[in-house]
């Protein structure tokens, strides 16, 4: 199978562009608005073997009211959990706008047989997942079995029904920007609603240049088809400064239409508190101790 991406990526050039955009000066009102926008785009995530219903419930509470008592702080976009926690999260988030996202398809390796991946997807959707984060078979991709990767995505997409599908490329394992671009197109053509950088479990997770490559792929796909696809960098985004740099890259690559949580998400667990801390700092002029922010 040939993937029509129409272009390659120059490593030096893309990294230079990402570095240039990360120098934008975001201050005052822009910073406050940016931080709020970033909070509203978070997929608040807990993906640990030791996750328990109690932990997930606490996280959901945080998701609905990131800063209790301050109504100007928006809810996050979604809570992202393992399949066995979907019903817990669904219950905890009932009646709110916060979505439930579940990882699926043998996350994080993505190496279970296809029927199991499909079954898993169907089950999490049945349990109430609004969004499904699947991971592609990197081994097949790197072996050049693009058709196989594409078919898997398409079948999982079908199993998702009305739930949104986010396709994790695990860019840290694809290594080259050309591969990232190719995998982005492959996922979009196979029906991804979102493309996502990483599981958060690999050695290298989201980076700004990789995100830029994927946003440019989304732009080219939109140029070709008129179809909007969302983007989710995940893993390694811990500070407000980083989050604002990502927003700058979205703003200046895809423009206003993508600047909402319908089209852009952050996969993050610790980012929220840093955003809250910066927000409080902007309001009070002082940095607060981390003890004033809840660890959930």
């Amino acid at each position, binding site marked *: 199978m040939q993937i029509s991406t129409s272009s390659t990526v120059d490593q030096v050039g893309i990294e230079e562009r990402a570095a240039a955009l990360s120098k934008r000066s975001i201050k005052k009102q822009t910073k406050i608005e940016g931080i709020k*926008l970033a909070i509203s785009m978070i997929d608040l995530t807990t993906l640990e073997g030791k996750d328990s219903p109690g932990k997930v419930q606490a996280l959901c509470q945080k998701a609905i009211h990131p800063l209790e008592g301050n109504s100007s702080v928006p809810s996050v976009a979604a809570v992202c959990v393992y399949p066995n926690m979907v019903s817990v999260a669904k219950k905890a988030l009932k009646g709110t706008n916060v979505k439930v996202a579940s990882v699926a398809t043998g996350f994080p390796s993505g190496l279970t047989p296809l029927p199991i991946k499909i079954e898993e997807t169907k089950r999490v959707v049945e349990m109430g997942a609004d969004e499904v984060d699947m991971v592609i078979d990197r081994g097949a991709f790197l072996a050049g079995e693009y058709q196989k990767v594409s078919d898997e995505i398409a079948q999982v997409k079908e199993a998702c029904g009305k739930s949104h599908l986010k396709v994790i490329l695990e860019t840290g394992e694809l290594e080259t920007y050309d591969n990232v671009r190719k995998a982005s197109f492959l996922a979009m053509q196979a029906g991804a609603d979102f493309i996502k950088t990483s599981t958060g479990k690999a050695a290298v997770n989201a980076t700004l240049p990789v995100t830029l490559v994927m946003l440019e792929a989304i732009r080219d796909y939109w140029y070709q088809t008129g179809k909007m696809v969302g983007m989710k960098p995940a893993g390694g985004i811990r500070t407000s400064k980083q989050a604002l740099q990502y927003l700058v890259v979205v703003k200046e690559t895809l*423009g206003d239409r993508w600047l909402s949580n319908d089209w852009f998400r952050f996969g993050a667990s610790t980012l929220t508190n840093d955003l809250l801390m910066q927000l409080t700092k902007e309001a009070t002029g002082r940095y607060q101790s981390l003890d004033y922010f809840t660890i959930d």
Partner: protein
Amino acid sequence: MTTAEKKIARLEVVEPKRLEFGKKWDYAPAPESTEHIKIQSRYELFIGGKFVSPKSGNYFKSINPATEEILTEVAEANEADVNLAVKAARTAYEKYWSKLPGSERAKYIFRIARQLQEKAREFAIIETMDGGKPIKESRDVDIPLAVAHFFYYAGWADKLDYAFPGRKTRPLGVAGQVIPWNFPLLMAAWKIAPALACGNTVVLKPAETTPLTALHLAQIIQEADLPPGVVNIVTGFGKTGAAIVNHPDVDKVAFTGSTEVGKIIQRAVAGTKKKLTLELGGKAANIVFDDAPIDQAIEGIINGIYFNQGHVCCAGSRLLVQESILDLVVRKLKDRIQTLRVGDPLDKNTDIGAINSSDQLKKIKELVQIGIDEGCKIHQSTCKLPERGFWFPPTFFTGVAQSNRIAQEEIFGPVLSILTFRTPEEAVEKANNTAYGLSAGVWTDKGSKIFKISSQLKAGVIWANTFNKFDPSSPFGGYKESGFGREGGLQGLMPYVQLI
């Protein structure tokens, strides 16, 4: 109307959908503070290590092109002043500079470099206020490169014996140097650093619209305790420059500026013993093949033509696009120019600053009008321009032919002419079909193609998959009407030495 005609008519009106770059999450102003910057109310000439009033008695105003506010007034040197400067340079050459060992000269040049580095922020702000270029460029490009240039040539000063195997070097004497307004401090560094390293003394004239950073550099030179007269800086207009060029006791003339003036200078020094280097205009071809990394090529095109408002002699002002990807490239460029932030040069988020002067703006407008009159299709950013100051929006033309004036003449503004080609041969032919030959760009993912094409291009600098990259160790200079002689690198020593 026949069916075929209908079809064509319909195809013409279908414009592809555009991305929206509107007001959502707009950046708040982030101006660089100017509070700690001290611009004097008046600047004198720097002759013989002292700041002295001009014999002419005249001063001219230097304005901020972004606001049209008067920043200060600057002394105008006449022939008598230039004569004093040349005399001071000659004395310094005979008495001190030519007698110092290279390692001692190096110490002084290193000192200039370090001082400049320490005051980088101040210099960046003054450069931006005086010339209109965005602070991010003066901060990240102009000043660091100027510093790097001094460091680089300081390193050469005690190694000249090894620069040209089997040959020794001897300085020339007094170098008369005239520089342009597009990179005021950087051009001063390009001129002064190699001249001093090789043992020459200098009389330098900055451009009349941007004299301030050179005069602040004079302060550093004074603080660095260079022997008096080693560097003299005389400000003024074309007449002052002519007085330097025509002065009988100048041994070497170096000029960067327009081809028109370059020709006058070459005539003036003909028949004299003066050595000459000229770095003049350009109309660089930026060639994009269909196998290029397109999005990075777009950035290269943007950087190539809109960097420093297009006031760049090596700007990639002629874009040669392979016909098969023309529509895609134009569509991407249309979206991309909307994201360029035009406005207050002191704002850290500004991408495109003010046009350097009203004269230059007039020239740009004239040539753009000629482009429209000749039937080329104009595309411009819809950005809002400030009311005061000199501004021009990012602009490009499609449907440009080789014979159009905007494809031949240097516009020296943020205006790009897009032409197409079908085969590599045609690309090379069109790229070389110009009176100039300063720079060129090649964009392709194929390494072999880069070498094949670049070896056929008649230009002094060729960038592959990038554009407008400078380094003090890399020689820069032109072919044909873009001038001769090289600045930077080992080659940049040549214009300032006699080989024996």
